């Protein structure tokens, strides 16, 4: 059982390029989340999904989009990357919204 996985582990990206960060969980959790982790700012919620087919905006959604076509996958897309999106991105999931969240290993993204 893998739990929750993310890909890629790290990526260097030119500004203006499109990028999709992948997140997959095999725990049949209903809720999934994307956070970015920045020094001095902690973790900030980008987008979330309470259940397959629904998504919602978090604290810092601008420049990002998500989809939840099925229970297991919750990809995060940067349509046109900018340097301020350089960060470590964590995906998380929970049985339901409000329960303990389990985190993926993170994706380190650098936008040049």
């Amino acid at each position, binding site marked *: 059982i893998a739990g929750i996985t993310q890909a890629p582990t790290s990526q260097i990206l030119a500004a203006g390029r499109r990028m999709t960060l992948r997140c997959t969980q095999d725990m049949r959790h209903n809720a999934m*989340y994307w*956070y970015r982790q920045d020094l*001095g*700012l*902690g*973790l*900030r*919620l980008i987008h*979330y999904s309470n259940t397959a087919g629904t998504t919602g905006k*978090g604290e810092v959604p601008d420049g990002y989009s998500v989809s939840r076509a099925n229970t297991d996958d919750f990809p995060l897309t940067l349509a046109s990357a900018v340097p301020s999106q350089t960060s470590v991105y*964590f995906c*998380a999931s929970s049985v339901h*919204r*409000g329960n*303990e*969240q*389990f*985190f*993926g*290993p*993170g994706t380190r993204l650098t936008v040049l």
Partner: protein
Amino acid sequence: AQRVTQPEKLLSVFKGAPVELKCNYSYSGSPELFWYVQYSRQRLQLLLRHISRESIKGFTADLNKGETSFHLKKPFAQEEDSAMYYCALIAGFQKLVFGTGTRLLVSP
């Protein structure tokens, strides 16, 4: 709005010394609070939650509603406790709100 405050960015102690990582929150109702830990190059993982009232790796945290605090304590720090610690709050069925984190550095 819900808010979690961790006033210390860095806490440096010697091995064997007591540790207290501060966490204050703002929420008008009855919150559910957590401490998450992130060891170097590892994913975030839940350390403890206030409703379970348990001690994990020697750490405890007591919810003080009067002071709106949920400080994390350990009587004798170990080098392997060095990590980033995040306090987090769930209010009702809302999202998990994290503090900015405190880096604990335990020196030999």
